[in-house]
């Protein structure tokens, strides 16, 4: 879908170079030039690109300006784009999200940053009852092209009220598109198509990913915000994960490979609408599935994915679908308990072994 697919242009290339400060790799020949970057820098480059490309784009939230964002995504943007476009807001999630809805209806392209998904609950009415419903309730007259970004997930010893994974809840709301970039490419490439979407888009950034580092092409690769992605091909079992769970699923796939089990890893990426075709396609090849979700098991996105597999690929399954989720407790603050509460590669590998071993 070209409307939602980022296209390369010179402005973006400059944005990447300027935001990350370095260019590596060849500039001629077949290998495209690449830059060393991090998830955080890739997000920042995506913001710069959007701000440069479209004067209607602006960012607002708590500590996004002088401080550069609580996770340093917007560091330096205030200096470059000024206070009109990089706005520190009063401490009121409901107020700045609601203002984002209003600005979007007025034709602007606001990016609202909420510190963590927990605090988005103070803005829940604006997200669920307003942003997500206004097009429908106005008979298509109103449009809310709003992007709301927030951190999600645990693992950084920030205690329950900063560590929950509530993106699955949002993924059940009609009217929203919900994205969960887990790779550098997606961190770099999802923002622009999200801004081009005429409907509200939520982007969940897992807090453990900001320091993820690697290389990206200088010319960002187009990113599709419709489809899941197979991140590692395999034949024996499909590990389905997203956001912070992706790295753990890939690590589990490494453990399994050492034992001769070939795991395919699917990154959901788009939590709403779910890309059934990619999920079902993979499970139909491997005949076994393990769903990884850092949220609580009961009523989770993992439950939804599992139900779809059972509905659509029941006769393809050689084993029951396994789920690896967080312990059903408020995420603990002590580091060792927090680690114990979350899905870990060893637990994912164990679930895969059960699926393969007991029924293989």
């Amino acid at each position, binding site marked *: 879908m070209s409307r939602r697919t980022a296209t390369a242009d010179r402005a973006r290339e400059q944005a990447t170079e300027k935001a990350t400060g370095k260019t590596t790799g060849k500039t001629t020949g077949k290998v495209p030039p690449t830059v060393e970057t991090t998830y955080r820098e890739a997000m920042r480059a995506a913001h710069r690109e959007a701000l440069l490309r479209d004067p209607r784009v602006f960012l607002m939230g708590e500590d996004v300006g002088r401080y550069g964002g609580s996770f340093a995504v917007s560091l330096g943007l205030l200096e470059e784009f000024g206070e009109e476009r990089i706005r*520190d807001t009063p401490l009121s999630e409901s107020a700045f999200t609601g203002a984002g809805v209003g600005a979007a209806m007025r034709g602007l392209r606001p990016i609202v940053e909420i510190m963590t998904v927990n605090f988005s609950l103070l803005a829940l009415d604006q997200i669920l009852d307003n942003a997500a419903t206004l097009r429908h309730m106005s008979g298509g007259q109103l449009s809310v092209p709003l992007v709301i970004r927030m951190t999600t997930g645990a693992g950084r010893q920030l205690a329950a009220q900063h560590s929950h994974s509530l993106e699955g809840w949002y993924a059940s709301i009609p009217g929203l598109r919900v994205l969960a970039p887990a790779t550098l490419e997606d961190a770099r490439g999802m923002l622009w198509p999200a801004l081009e979407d005429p409907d509200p888009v939520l982007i969940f950034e897992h807090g453990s990913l900001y320091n993820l580092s690697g290389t990206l092409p200088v010319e960002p690769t187009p990113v599709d915000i419709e489809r899941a992605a197979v991140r590692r091909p395999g034949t024996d079992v499909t590990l389905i994960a997203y956001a912070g769970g992706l790295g753990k699923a890939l690590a589990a796939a490494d453990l399994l490979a050492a034992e001769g089990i070939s795991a395919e890893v699917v990154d959901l990426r788009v939590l709403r609408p779910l890309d059934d075709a990619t999920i079902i396609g993979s499970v139909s090849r491997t005949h076994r599935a393990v769903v990884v979700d850092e949220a609580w098991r009961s009523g989770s996105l993992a439950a939804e994915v599992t139900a779809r597999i059972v509905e659509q690929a029941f006769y393809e399954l050689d084993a029951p679908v396994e789920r690896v989720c967080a312990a059903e407790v408020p995420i603990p603050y002590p580091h060792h308990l927090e680690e114990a509460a979350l899905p870990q590669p060893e637990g994912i590998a164990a679930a895969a072994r059960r699926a393969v071993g007991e029924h293989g």
Partner: protein
Amino acid sequence: MSDKVVAELHQPTPEVGDGGPDMIQLLTPEGQRVSHPDYDQYVADLTAEDLRSFYRDLVLIRRLDAEGYALQRQGELGLWPSLLGQEAAQVGSGRALKPHDFVFPTYREHGVGFVRGMDPQSSLQLFRGVSQGGWDPTEHNFHLYTIVIGAQTLHATGYAMGVKMDGNVGTGDPDRDTAVICYFGDGASSQGDVNEAFVYAASFDAPVVFFCQNNQWAISEPVTKQTRIPLFQRARGFGFPGVRVDGNDVLATYAVTKHCLDEARNGNGPLLIEAYTYRMGAHTTADDPTKYRVSAEVEQWKFRDPILRLKTYLAHEGMADDAFFTQVDEEADGFAAELREGCITMETMAGETMWDHVYAEDHPVMEAERAAFLAYKASFEEAN
């Protein structure tokens, strides 16, 4: 609109560090006692010994704070929110409370907890992650910390409504009439919860004193991002009294809080106190304030240090001598050593405790997960 109204509406926010003419002060930054027609009565019967104990509290909680900071830097605590600079606001207001009053803190009121008689290890326990909650809120009528900005103002309002429903307001019995005090920050003043708490508390005449420590910053955002008018003036729009006090003046904070608590206990709540102070340190150990504020501002506030001004006053009035100050410093050294020792020897929580208290009673999901965890844990012992 008349010119007067327009002029009033455009009254500028006072300079940082000034506090403006409405700010109640009993001790100047230089340690001079200045009298106030309304508030002198609340400090009139404080003895020299009382004042020395105020001083001691100020010094000890600054030390507690320094230890908390150091322990976090050494990896012994996950996080530490510093109270540096806000000692007088916390000691003055905390000492004004009666034991049966109830406190709703934010996450920074280690000093209030201390003067309530709480074991100072409690806040270290919380931030070390060896206990859920850190302390028993009923032991000293000091509620647990709240991290969701502003949420506790509604809890305090509801609690105060309960106090009133129990008939513990306006009876004239000093052992019975009860006030609730709720701490929050300048940044919190923008939250919907806080504004709704104001509306609600006013509507039900709740015996609650809203105590805003305006420390000028909400992480990186200056108070001017939250408000155009001095925060205490907001109360007027909600229909209850608001007062600004010099939060670095322990006497004034004590006097103003005593007055407001009396009012609340007598049934004249709610009330708002804005304690004008300054966050001398970082927001928490996870923050670096040099990124967003100038050191000149911090330097300026050093001249308003809450401890130094009381010390100067005590020395000048002959209420304390060098021997006393030395003795307090020595006590603080011992106190610090005890805190450290206590902190690093705290026992960690066993993994299976994670499933405790999710519900009041046994719950099938918790039991199943706990059992699976214990079996997993036992598998290591078998392997050994």
